[in-house]
């Protein structure tokens, strides 16, 4: 098991966490009248008051340009920005702080690696491997770069229980494989993929691995050195942080091989008419004025989660997921996708109700104060594998409780009553 980064950051209380009390940290959950049953955290998590306040405080009292001024306000802003990077680096246990690059999102981070690394390393006939359960953001950038470089996009199949079917991807570690890009946790099925095992094999063949950790960072302990991956990406807004900021982790060697995606201010060393040179890593990947308040908000979210403890969060979500799974499974009309409960599954449950379109399920849910998602979840290749056009999805975070899941059960009863066969 990965070491809990929280043990190195602010120490979590040894006492059992009172998760019910933590709901009061989230204004949207605490104020809710009528109550909000928020079961859409895989799309975006709710924000604790401390994160909201840190962003307000940054803009109100500590705001200045980052890496651009020599007066105290600007120097302080630069320091706060870099302190956020240190906090994040410690959180994912990066070897050095400069291995963490701030981006707008996990999506931008993947595009950065596709354009900046893959495009300059792929040759005709090479292969990039992704899995059939990838989010479009970990699919389309690879599809495009493969088309541009006359390379092949290969697919690791998914078995009937929604797990990676590595045995049926015999060429995954073959001589033409140049990069493997897989998610640590599926945003549709909740499957937790054996990333460590994939990296271990890939290492032996010198194939870099990018881990899409958008659903896992902040929800379970994630340690990049333990995973031993080359790249890892995530978004702040899925881990109680603000929208508009995410990050790319890369090993120093891989980042040195990567060209910047965006060119402009702040990322250069020397600019001439015919030739320019880039700044050091990570600045070379952060063209334009940095998102200071975003970085501060993200660091505050990291501190908040670390104080609760990532292992405690993981266990809480596992307990809730187990309860939700059994609740949904009890309905004859409900078809659940993905692995059964247990270690293979995070807090994401995709399901359909026989004969009823998931949009109708989500609409009825909305009217009853239950926020769930319906659609293809930006995973059309996976929908094809499941043989459906869309699913309903309930996703859990540590701030959910038993009542949220009972409310979901009520929604299913109501939906069946309205639309079911009569």
């Amino acid at each position, binding site marked *: 098991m990965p070491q809990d980064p929280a043990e190195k950051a602010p120490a979590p209380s040894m006492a059992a966490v009172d998760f019910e009390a933590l709901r009061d940290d989230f204004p949207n959950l605490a104020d809710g009248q009528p109550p909000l049953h928020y079961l859409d955290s895989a799309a975006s998590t709710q924000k604790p008051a401390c994160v909201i306040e840190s962003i307000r405080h940054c803009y109100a009292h500590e705001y200045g340009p980052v890496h651009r001024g020599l007066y105290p306000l600007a120097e302080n802003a630069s320091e706060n920005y870099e302190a956020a990077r240190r906090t994040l680096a410690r959180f994912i246990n990066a070897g050095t702080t400069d291995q963490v690059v701030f981006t707008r999102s996990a999506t931008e981070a993947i595009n950065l690696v596709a354009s900046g690394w893959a495009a300059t390393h792929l040759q005709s006939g090479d292969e990039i491997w992704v899995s059939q359960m990838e989010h479009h953001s970990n699919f389309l950038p690879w599809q495009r770069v493969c088309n541009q470089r006359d390379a092949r996009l290969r697919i690791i199949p998914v078995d009937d229980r929604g797990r990676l079917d590595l045995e049926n991807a015999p060429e995954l570690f073959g001589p033409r494989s140049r990069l493997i890009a897989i998610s640590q946790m599926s945003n549709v099925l909740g499957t937790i993929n054996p990333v460590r095992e994939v990296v271990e094999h890939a290492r032996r063949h010198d194939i870099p691995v990018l881990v899409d950790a958008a659903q896992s960072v902040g929800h379970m302990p994630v340690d990049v050195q333990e995973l031993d991956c080359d790249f890892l990406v995530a978004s702040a807004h899925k881990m109680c942080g603000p929208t508009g900021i995410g990050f790319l982790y890369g090993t120093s060697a891989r980042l040195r091989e990567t060209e910047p995606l965006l060119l402009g201010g702040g990322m250069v060393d020397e600019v001439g008419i015919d030739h320019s040179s880039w700044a050091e890593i990570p600045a070379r990947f952060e063209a334009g004025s940095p998102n200071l308040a975003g970085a501060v908000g993200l660091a505050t979210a990291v501190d908040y989660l670390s104080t609760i403890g990532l292992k405690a969060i993981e266990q809480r979500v596992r307990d809730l997921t187990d309860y939700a799974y059994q609740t949904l499974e009890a309905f004859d009309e409900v078809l659940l996708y993905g692995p059964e409960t247990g270690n293979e599954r995070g807090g994401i449950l995709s399901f359909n109700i026989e004969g*009823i*379109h*998931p*949009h*109708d399920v989500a*609409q*009825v849910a909305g*009217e009853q104060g239950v926020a769930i998602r*319906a*659609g*293809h979840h930006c995973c*059309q290749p996976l929908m094809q594998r499941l043989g*459906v*056009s*869309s699913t309903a999805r309930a996703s859990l975070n540590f701030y959910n409780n038993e009542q949220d899941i009972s409310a979901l059960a009520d929604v299913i009863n*109501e939906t069946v009553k*309205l*639309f079911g066969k*009569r």
Partner: protein
Amino acid sequence: MTDQSIYRAVLLDHFHNPRNKGDLGDMQIVRRGSNPRCGDEIEIGINCENNTLESVRFRGRGCSICLASASLMTESARGLKLTQARDLIEKMQLWFGDQGGVGPPGMGLAALGSVRQHPARKKCVLLAWQALDEILDEIERHPEIVGA
């Protein structure tokens, strides 16, 4: 379920008991409407005589709003002159457009109004109407198909 619910009795009735739904084998023109984002997929078929829609039918799968709207559309469009059908479609599109100030084009369609406050589902409503619009385009281009 409140009165504001978009699943008002009329829509539920059309979902559970769709009108003019089924085989399109003997229709003169069939057009498909699909929304790959959510998997709604329907086909509209018509028979036309003397510039009048003698029969309008549909088949397909989709959410309750999409199917109820298709059912309502077939009822509203049947018996209309082609120009009247075009006019009805335009009014539907205006009613579901952003400008406001346009009411439902007929009492029978008023139930769909509850969907207007849910922008994400407007496309579900309009799918059948757009398919009919394309059929009218086709008739304009090739009137011989309907014997004109």
